[in-house]
C-alpha cells in the first residue's frame, strides 16, 4: 500500500505547495489535502478537520503548516494542532512547514516540549520538493517495495531482484543475487533515506564469513558494477555507482543516464 500524506496548509493551492504535491505523487504516495469550508475562524476549522481526518483515514504522515490563516490568532495555529496530534497520535510522523524567519528560536522551543525521539521535524517552505520527500522518507521510516535508483534501474525488496526498465520492458539482472543482492540493497536503502551517507565497511562485511571479508567485499562490489554496467550498456569505473570513500566505506552514486 502506498503511503498517504495529509497536507494541512492554507496555501495548498499555491505553486510552491503544488510542486511538493507533484513530487509526492511522483514518489508514488497518495496525498490528501485539508480544505475546510470558509467560516468564522479558519484556524479552528483546519484544526477540527485535520483531527477528524487523522482519526477517520489514518494517514502515514502529515505535512503541516504553522500559519493557517491571516488572522493573528491563526499565526501559530499549526503548533496547537501539532500538540494535539502528539498527544493523541504520538507515533504519527509530522513534518512542519515553518516560515524561515521563525525558524531557529521557535523550532527550538517547540522541540523542547517534545520527546527527543518524537517523529516531528521542521522544514522551511522554501525547501525543495526533493528535500521535503527525503525528510518524509526518514520520518515515515519505511522503504517502498520497488526502489527507483535512477530513471531505469530498480531494486525490488520483495522479490530480491534488480532490474532495468527500458521501453516499458523490465530486464532482470540475474547475476545480482545472494550476498551481492544484500550488499547492493544495503547501499540502495541507505542512499534512499539519506543521499551522501556512507555505508561503513562493518555493515557490509557482515555478509561474509572467513578471514578476508574486506577482500571478499571488494570483489563482490566489482562484480556488481560489471553486471550493472552490462545491463545499462555503460562502463562503470572506480568512481562510478559504488564508491570507496577514504577507506571508510562505500556509498551509492546513481549513474546519470
Amino acid at each position: 500500500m502506498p503511503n498517504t500524506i495529509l497536507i494541512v496548509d492554507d496555501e495548498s493551492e499555491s505553486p510552491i505547495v503544488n510542486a511538493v504535491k507533484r513530487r509526492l505523487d511522483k514518489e508514488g504516495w497518495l496525498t490528501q489535502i485539508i480544505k475546510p469550508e470558509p467560516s468564522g475562524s479558519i484556524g479552528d476549522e483546519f484544526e477540527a478537520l485535520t483531527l477528524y481526518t487523522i482519526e477517520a483515514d489514518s494517514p502515514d504522515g502529515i505535512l503541516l503548516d504553522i500559519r493557517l490563516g491571516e488572522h493573528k490568532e491563526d499565526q501559530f495555529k499549526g503548533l496547537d494542532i501539532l500538540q494535539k496530534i502528539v498527544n493523541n497520535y504520538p507515533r504519527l510522523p509530522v513534518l512542519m512547514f515553518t516560515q524561515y524567519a521563525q525558524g531557529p528560536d521557535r523550532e527550538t522551543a517547540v522541540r523542547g516540549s517534545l520527546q527527543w525521539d518524537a517523529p516531528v521535524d521542521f522544514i522551511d517552505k522554501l525547501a525543495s520538493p526533493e528535500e521535503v520527500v527525503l525528510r518524509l522518507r526518514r520520518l515515515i521510516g519505511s522503504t517502498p517495495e520497488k526502489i527507483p535508483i535512477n530513471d531505469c534501474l530498480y531494486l525490488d525488496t520483495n522479490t530480491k531482484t534488480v532490474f532495468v526498465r527500458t521501453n516499458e520492458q523490465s530486464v532482470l539482472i540475474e547475476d545480482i543475487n545472494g550476498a551481492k543482492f544484500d550488499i547492493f540493497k544495503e547501499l540502495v536503502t541507505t542512499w534512499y533515506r539519506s543521499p551522501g551517507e556512507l555505508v561503513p565497511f562493518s555493515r557490509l562485511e557482515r555478509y561474509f564469513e572467513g578471514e578476508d571479508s574486506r577482500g571478499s567485499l571488494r570483489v563482490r562490489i566489482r562484480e556488481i558494477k560489471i553486471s550493472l554496467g552490462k545491463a545499462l550498456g555503460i562502463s562503470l569505473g572506480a568512481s562510478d555507482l559504488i564508491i570507496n570513500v577514504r577507506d571508510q566505506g562505500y556509498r551509492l552514486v546513481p549513474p546519470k543516464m
Partner: protein
Amino acid sequence: MLVFAFAGIMGLIISPFVGETLTDYLWGVEPTAYLSVGVILVALLTMALSYYIPRLLGRSESLVGVDQRTAERWGLLTQQYFELFHHDLGRPLRRILGKERELRLTFRAAETKLHPEIQGLLDEIEAQTPSFRLMVSNIQLLVQLEAPTVPTIQPVEPSELIRRIVDRYTPVAGDAYKEITWWSEPAEFGLVYCDGAAIEHILTNLVDNMVRYATEHIEIQLTRNLTDFFIRVWDDGPGIAPHYTEHIFDRGWTPEVARIEEKTSSGLGLFIANMLAIKYGGDLTVESIVEPDPEHHTAFLLSLPIKGPM
C-alpha cells in the same frame, strides 16, 4: 566605626579628668573634649557614608539594569519586526519559487527539452535558494546574538542534523557536478546535549561555503571522544591563503575586502558560526592547503562538548 565613635564618647566623658591629669591645666580639658567630639564626628560621618554610598551605587546599577532591559526589549522588538518583514517578503519569494518548480515539473513530465538559457535560469533560481535561506537565518541570528539569551540545551542526534543539511545541498551540489559524502565514527553515534538549531546553523554555513568553493568533493565526518564531539567539513577546493585564514572569522570580512573588490557574500556566515560555537562551549578552527600543492583543500573543525556548555 562604632568602635571609634565609642572611643570618642568615652573620651568626652573622661576628658575633664584626663585633661586635668595630662596637662595639669583646666584648659587641657577642652582639647581632649574637642578631640573626642572630633573622633565621634569622624566616626559618624564614615558610618553615614558607608551606608549611603552603596545605595547610590546600587541606584546607578539599577539605571544600568534599565539600559539592559531596554536593550533586551529593543532586541525582542527588532526580532519581531524582522519576523513580520520576512514573512511579508517570503510571500513573493514563495510564489517565484513555486512557479519555477511547477514549470520545471511540467516540462519534465512532457519530456520537453528546454532551451539552455531557460534551463540555466531555472537552475540559477533553485541554486540561489539555499544561500538565500541561509542569509535570512544569519541575519536573524545576528539580531539574537546582539541580545544574548541563555543557551538552550536538548538531546540532539548530530547524525540527523548532518543528514538534513546534506538533503538541502545535494541537489545544488549535484547541479554543479559536486558531491557531498558524510559518515560518522562510530556508525551508531548516539545523542549529544546542545541546541540542535545552533549546530545545524553552524554546519549549514560551513557546507554552504564548501559547495561554493569545492572542486568536486565535500566530505563531512562526525567523530567523538569521551568528552567532546567533532564535525570536520572538508572540501577539495583551491584552499585559503594563510593571510586570509587569520581573518576568516571576522565579522563582515571576505577575501574581497582584502583585495578592495566588491563583496560576493555578506561575510557574516563564518563569524556567526564561530560565535555560536563559542556560545555553546566549543571551538571552530580552519586549516587549509593552497594550490598548486596537489593536497590542496580546506577543512573546518567544529568541536563541542557532548554534555553541553559548562
